[in-house]
């Protein structure tokens, strides 16, 4: 009998700690599928962040490093410079990448560090119980913006792909979502491309994945996926923000 569905080999056979309805599981799977498809599990080293995916080091079968909050791109830089032949990826949330780790993110991008960054944007700090993130939407209610994010008081959300696209450095920037089958299939393609870029020594690739947090958004999983369509994607439009190789081919 033909097997039509199985667990990616790069994904460890352990229970994940994520909340019901959380899309981290899907994104883990997409990363593992890319590692399988490219046959790079034995040479890959992943860097886990601080946040909901802090224990990602237990979930991938490749070698893993747990970084301090926001420092994953610097840790990945050290790994890649020490082992240029290995494949290095970071897996980071919005607080980790776009708040405390902003400097490390921008500078790894501007150096065109040959690494792959998986950036999970769910517009909230999940692990600590739902505080306002650098990517929380204007008006979004969180534990630390109980009356809704007031942009006059605490500023505007950070649009990471748009911002990094202003730099000469990065090779590839794309924003995807995982709230329906079509978007998931597209996210899978983008994530694999981000790893292929590294294999081909093209440089810094960041895939921003719009994700849901039913627990801290206070919604059913189904409603959270709809909320992505209704609120997240209008503010964070999906698409390719930079693809240097494609631009060069065109020119």
């Amino acid at each position, binding site marked *: 009998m033909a097997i039509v569905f199985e667990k990616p080999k790069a994904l460890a056979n352990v229970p994940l700690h994520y909340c019901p309805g959380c899309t981290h599981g899907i994104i883990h799977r997409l990363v593992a599928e890319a590692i399988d498809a490219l046959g790079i599990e034995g040479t890959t080293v992943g860097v886990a962040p601080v946040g909901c995916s802090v224990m990602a080091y237990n979930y991938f079968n490749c070698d893993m490093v747990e970084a301090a909050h926001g420092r994953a791109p610097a840790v990945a*830089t050290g790994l890649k410079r020490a082992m240029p032949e290995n494949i290095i990826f970071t897996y980071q949330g919005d607080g980790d990448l776009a708040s405390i780790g902003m400097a490390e993110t*921008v500078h790894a991008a501007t150096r065109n560090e040959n690494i792959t960054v998986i950036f999970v944007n769910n517009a909230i700090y999940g692990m600590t119980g739902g505080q306002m993130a650098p990517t929380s939407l204007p008006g979004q209610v969180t534990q630390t913006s109980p009356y809704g994010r007031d942009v006059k008081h605490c500023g505007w959300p950070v649009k990471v792909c748009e911002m990094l696209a202003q730099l000469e450095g990065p090779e590839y920037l794309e924003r995807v979502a995982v709230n329906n089958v079509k978007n998931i299939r597209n996210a899978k393609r983008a994530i694999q491309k981000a790893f292929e870029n590294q294999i081909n020594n093209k440089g810094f690739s960041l895939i921003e994945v719009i994700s849901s947090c039913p627990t801290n958004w206070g919604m059913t999983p189904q409603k959270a996926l709809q909320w992505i369509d209704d609120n997240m994607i209008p503010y964070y439009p999906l698409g390719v923000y930079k693809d240097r190789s494609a631009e060069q081919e065109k020119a």
Partner: protein
Amino acid sequence: MAEKVLMKGNEAIAEAAIMAGCRHYFGYPITPQTEIAAYMAKRMPKIGGCFLQAESEIAAINMVYGAASAGVRVMTSSSSPGISLKGEGLSYMAGSDLPALVINVQRGGPGLGGIQPSQSDYFQSTRGGGHGDYHMIILAPASVQEMASLTFKGFDLAEKYRMTAMILADGTMGQMMEPVSLEMGEINEHDKSWAVTGTKMARKHNIINSLSLIPEELEQQNFDRYARYKKVEENEVMYEEYLMDDAEICIVAFGIAARVSRNAINEARAQGIKVGMIRPITLWPFPKDALDKAADTCKAFISVELSMGQMIEDVQLATKCRRPVTLCNRAGGMIPSPEEVLQAIKEAKGGLE
């Protein structure tokens, strides 16, 4: 006899690191240690190594964390305010049992302080510097020769015990020039089976990590780490004695303070005062036993420091407060003169009569 070359202390550190097999350097500019980065920037590309100027000290120490995770010999250098920024990374490296060499060419503080020599990071370095229970091996050179030889040794100790070693120098040591022999000996190989070099599909994945949410397990990790620290305390204490055989007054000083003290001791001896010195070379582990033994015969101790008095607490602890310990110090980038130390010796002598 080995050929000697005239080198600046900071350059001696850089060259000795390269001789120790260090091919990865990450740092951020700060006075008075920038010669180390400049030297590495020149040399590393020529020998297949990597010099990378990081966006901050925080990024630099985390690049060190990444390269150390890969099992390579890696170092960073900075000065006091920059070391504070590295504190987070140093704590994570301790929690992940990663070896690396960190250089602190101290300047006066607190805050932005100044750029002149200081030893006021003694507490910060010997007590850990970052959060949590941990130690680093702290090496205190008192000559350009030791800047080189302790750098070479520091890499070895770091790998042997899977912990960070730190060269605790000061602006004088970094800037002054002396003849130095660069014959360093063999590089010892240490086990690196823990490194994340890729599983090659031949082993279970390695994880470099300092997170442990189960208190029983985290406690055990701390116990295991401290069992290792105990071995360091048993095996790696280094110090130098100067004219201690008949000494009734004992100066304790490290780095540039020991150099100044030596002059003062010679002058005091010429005046008939029996004074000697114990110069700690490792500040952690501290030469406790040597000081305790000295307290059997010496009647007074003087801690000579470029700080408001930090090491003096370790001197009091090591001698179990059996003898008076006085402080001879300058701070903020000032260095005690031999005359000031001589005066302190005379005062201590006066106290005995």
